[in-house]
C-alpha cells in the first residue's frame, strides 16, 4: 500500500516538473497500468499522482519560469524573481513546506468535515459560480506589478481568446477558422507554457548582459528567518482559501492559486514587492493549489460527483475496479475510503521528504549552461504539450504564444492576467448563460441566492475600497500640488 502511494508521489512529482504534462495527462497515461491492481491501491497511486504534481509544478516555475502545469502560473511570477536574486533554494523550500502544510490541512478537513461540506459544493450552481468568477475578475486588477491599464488590457485579450470554440449554448463554432481542434477552445497549458516558458527562453539570448548563473551555497538553499516569517501567514491563508475554493466544481485549483496571490497582494504591507520576488507570492498560491486539489476530493468522495476532469478520471478508475462512486462509498467500501485518506497523510509526508532534499539538486540544474539547457527545455515543452491531447494544433499555439510572450516581455507586459482571462472566460460565459436559462432571462437570480449575493457584495466592497483609495490618492496629489503652487505663490 505504502509502496503505491510512494510510486504515485514520485510519478506525480515528475509529472508536475515536466512542462506541459499536467496531472490529467499523467493520470490518463497511467490509468491502464492500474488495471492489474486492486481498487484501493489503484486509487491511492492515481491520487498520489494528482497531489504530487501540485508539489512538482512549482519547480520549473521557480527555476525557469515554465509552469509545469496550469496552477503554477502564479508561482512563475515571484518564484522566478526570487530565483534571479539567488533565492531559488529558498523559494523551492517554501513551496514544498507550504504545499505540505496545505496538503495536510486539506486531508484533516477531508477527514473531519467532508460530508457537511459536500452539501456546499451542491449549492454552488451556475449563479454562485458566476459570482465567484466576477470576484475573480475584480481581483485580476490586483494581479500585476505593472500598470493597471496594462493588466486590464492583458486580461481583456485573455477573455477574448477564451471565447474561441464551440458555443455550448447554441452549437456554433466561434473564431475557430474551420480548425476542429479549436472547437474546445484554446488550451490553457499550451498558452501558459508558451507565454511564460518559451517567451523567457527566447528573450534570454538577446539580453545584453547574460545573467550569471547563481550557484548557491548549501546554507543559502534554505529560507532565512525573515523569509519563514513572511511566508507563515500566507501559507495559512492559502491553505484555508484553497480548500474551500477547491470544493467548488470546475478548474478550481487554478483559480485558487490566483485568488490567493491577489489576496496576499491585497493584504500585504509591501504590495510593490510583488512581481519582484515577494516570498508571500510564492507561499500563498503554492499552498492554495495544494489544499484545493485536496478539497476537490470532497464532492468526489462524499457525493460521488466529479468536480473537474481529474476527479472524473479518478472516478472512472474506481468504476473500472467495480466500485460505483456515489454517496454510499464511505459506508459500502470503508476500506477504500479510509485507505485513501490514510495514504494522503503519508503521501504528503513522503512528498515533503522527497522534495526538500531535491531542492539542492534542482537548483544545480541552473548550473547547466543555457546552450544545453534551453534546447532541452524547448523539446520537453513541445512533447509535453503534444502529449496532452495528441493535437499538433496545441504545439502551434504554444509556439505562437512563445513569440507573443517574447514581445510582451520586451514591452514589459505581464502575461499572467492573459492566462487568467483565458481560464475565466469560458466558465464565466457558460455559468452566466446557464444562470439566465434557469431564471428565464431574469438577472435578479444573482441577488436571490445567498452565496451568490455574498460574493457579489464582496466584489462591490472591493471596488468601493479601490475607488476610495484612488480618490484619496488623487485628493492627496491635488493637495500636494496646491500646497506646492501655494508656496510658489
Amino acid at each position, binding site marked *: 500500500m505504502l509502496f503505491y502511494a510512494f510510486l504515485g508521489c514520485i510519478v506525480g512529482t515528475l509529472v508536475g516538473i515536466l512542462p506541459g504534462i499536467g496531472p*490529467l495527462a499523467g*493520470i*490518463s497515461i497511467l*490509468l*491502464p497500468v492500474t*488495471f492489474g491492481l486492486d481498487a484501493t491501491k489503484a486509487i491511492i497511486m492515481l491520487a498520489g499522482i494528482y497531489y504530487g504534481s501540485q508539489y512538482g509544478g512549482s519547480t520549473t516555475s521557480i527555476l525557469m519560469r515554465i509552469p509545469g502545469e496550469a496552477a503554477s502560473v502564479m508561482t512563475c511570477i515571484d518564484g522566478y524573481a526570487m530565483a534571479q536574486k539567488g533565492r531559488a533554494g529558498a523559494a523551492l523550500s517554501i513551496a514544498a513546506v507550504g504545499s505540505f502544510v496545505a496538503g495536510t490541512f486539506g486531508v484533516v478537513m477531508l477527514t473531519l468535515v467532508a460530508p457537511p461540506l459536500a452539501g456546499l459544493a*451542491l*449549492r*454552488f*450552481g*451556475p449563479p454562485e459560480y458566476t459570482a465567484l468568477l466576477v470576484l475573480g475578475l475584480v481581483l485580476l486588477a490586483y494581479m500585476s506589478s505593472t500598470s493597471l491599464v496594462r493588466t486590464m488590457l492583458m486580461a481583456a485579450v485573455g477573455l477574448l481568446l477564451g471565447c474561441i470554440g*464551440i458555443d*455550448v*449554448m*447554441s*452549437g*456554433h*463554432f466561434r473564431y475557430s477558422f474551420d480548425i*476542429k*481542434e479549436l*472547437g*474546445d477552445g484554446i488550451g490553457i497549458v499550451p498558452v501558459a507554457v508558451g507565454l511564460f516558458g518559451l517567451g523567457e527562453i527566447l528573450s534570454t539570448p538577446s539580453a545584453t548582459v547574460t545573467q550569471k548563473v547563481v550557484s548557491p551555497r548549501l546554507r543559502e538553499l534554505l529560507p532565512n528567518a525573515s523569509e519563514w516569517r513572511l511566508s507563515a501567514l500566507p501559507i495559512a491563508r492559502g491553505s484555508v482559501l484553497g480548500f474551500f475554493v477547491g470544493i467548488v*466544481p470546475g478548474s478550481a485549483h487554478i483559480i485558487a492559486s490566483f485568488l490567493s496571490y491577489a489576496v496576499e497582494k491585497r493584504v500585504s504591507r509591501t504590495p510593490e514587492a510583488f512581481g519582484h520576488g515577494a516570498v508571500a507570492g510564492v507561499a500563498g498560491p503554492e499552498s492554495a493549489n495544494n489544499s484545493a486539489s485536496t478539497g476537490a476530493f470532497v*464532492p468526489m468522495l462524499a*457525493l*460521488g*460527483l*466529479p468536480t473537474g*476532469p481529474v476527479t*472524473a*478520471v479518478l*472516478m*472512472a*478508475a474506481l*468504476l*473500472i*475496479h*467495480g466500485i*460505483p*462512486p*456515489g*454517496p*454510499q*462509498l464511505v459506508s459500502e467500501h470503508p476500506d477504500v475510503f479510509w485507505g485513501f485518506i490514510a495514504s494522503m497523510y503519508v503521501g504528503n509526508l513522503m512528498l515533503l521528504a522527497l522534495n526538500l532534499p531535491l531542492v539542492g539538486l534542482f537548483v544545480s540544474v541552473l548550473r547547466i549552461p543555457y546552450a544545453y539547457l534551453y534546447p532541452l527545455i524547448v523539446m520537453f515543452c513541445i512533447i509535453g504539450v503534444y502529449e496532452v*491531447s*495528441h*493535437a499538433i494544433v496545441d504545439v502551434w499555439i504554444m509556439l505562437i504564444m512563445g513569440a507573443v510572450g517574447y514581445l510582451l516581455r520586451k514591452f514589459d507586459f505581464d502575461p499572467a492576467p492573459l492566462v487568467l482571462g483565458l481560464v475565466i472566460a469560458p466558465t464565466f460565459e*457558460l455559468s452566466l448563460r*446557464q444562470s439566465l*436559462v*434557469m431564471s*428565464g432571462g431574469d438577472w435578479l437570480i444573482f441577488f436571490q441566492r445567498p452565496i451568490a449575493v455574498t460574493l457579489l457584495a464582496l466584489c462591490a466592497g472591493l471596488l468601493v475600497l479601490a475607488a476610495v483609495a484612488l480618490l484619496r490618492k488623487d485628493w492627496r496629489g491635488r493637495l500636494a500640488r496646491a500646497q506646492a503652487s501655494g508656496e510658489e505663490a
Partner: protein
Amino acid sequence: MHRRSFVVGSAAVAVLGQEGWTRSGRQAWAQEAYPTRAITIINPFPPGGAADVVARPLAAVLEPALKQPVVIETKAGAAGQVGAQFAASAKPDGYTLLVHIVSISGFAEVDKLYGRPVKFTRDDFIPLARLIADPMVLLVNDQQPYKDLSQLVADVRRRPNELIYSSSGLHGALHLPTALFLRAAGLQMKHLPTNGGGPALTALIGNNAQMACSAIAAAMGQIRAGKVRALACLGAQRATALPEVPTMKEQGYDVEFYLWVGTFAPKGTPEPIVVRLREEIGKAAAAEEFRQAMKNIGQDVAYLDQAEFKAFWDADAKRVEDAVRQIGKV
C-alpha cells in the same frame, strides 16, 4: 505518425530483413499475416468516458490474440468530432480504428442544420462490432414529488417552460433522448446544457435542474443512494439493474435510446482485414476477462457482429437524426 507503431513497425521490418525475405515475399506475408505492427484505436473522448472504459479492456484482450500491441490514443475534442474525423481520414489499412458512441450518428445532421460543410458521414466508417448498449433512464432529483412518469408529465404540462432539464451538452448523448421524450409527450421544458455527463448529474442533484436523462451505469450510485429517482427506462425491455423501473413504451411513449459503444474501421479498409478484426473482436467480447471488466463498470456485454450492428446502427441513426432535427437550431 504514432511513435510506438513506428518503432514496432521498423523493428519488425528490421527482423524480417535479417532473415533475408525479399520485398515481394514480405508484402505477400504482410497480406496474409495482418497485423504486422501496432494497431491504434482512437478514443475521441476524454479519458475515463464510456468509450475509454470499454476500449481499454478490449485492447487488453485483443493484444495477445493479434500478437501486436493495441494502443488507445485519446483524441478528444468537440464532443467526439475531432477523433472521429481523424479516424475517417486515416489510411484505411486496419492500423487505425475508432471506438465511438451513439452520438457519432448526429454530427453530419448537425452540420447540415447549421449550413456547415459536412466533415464526415456515417458512410465514412465500416461498423465492426457493437460492444455494449446501456439503455438510458429518465431521472428526477429527490426534491421533486413525482412518484411516476405520469405525475411528471402532468405537472410539466400544467406549467410549460418552468422545469429545467440538464444535459451533457447540445446534441450530446444526454440531450438527444430528452428531446425525443419531450416531443413524444408534447412537453416544453428549459434546457440547461453543461460540459459533460458528470456536471449534468451534479446540476440535477443540486436541484439546478429537475430532470435529466443518463446512462444507467453513470447514475447507479446516485439511484441507490436515493439522490435521484428513475421514472422510466428508455430500453426496449426493462433493464436488469433496475427491474422495477418501467420502460417508456410501457408508459405509452415510443422512445428508445441507448448509450452504446461500438468499434469502426475507416471506409476502404480491405475486406480480409475487416474479417480478421471482426473475428478477433467477437472472440474478445466473449472472453471472460472482457465480460468481467464490463461487469465492473456496471454493463452487460451487448455484442453485435457487423451485419446486426449495421442494422441496429441504421435504425439508431434515424432516431438520432430525428432528435437533432427535433431540437433544431438553437
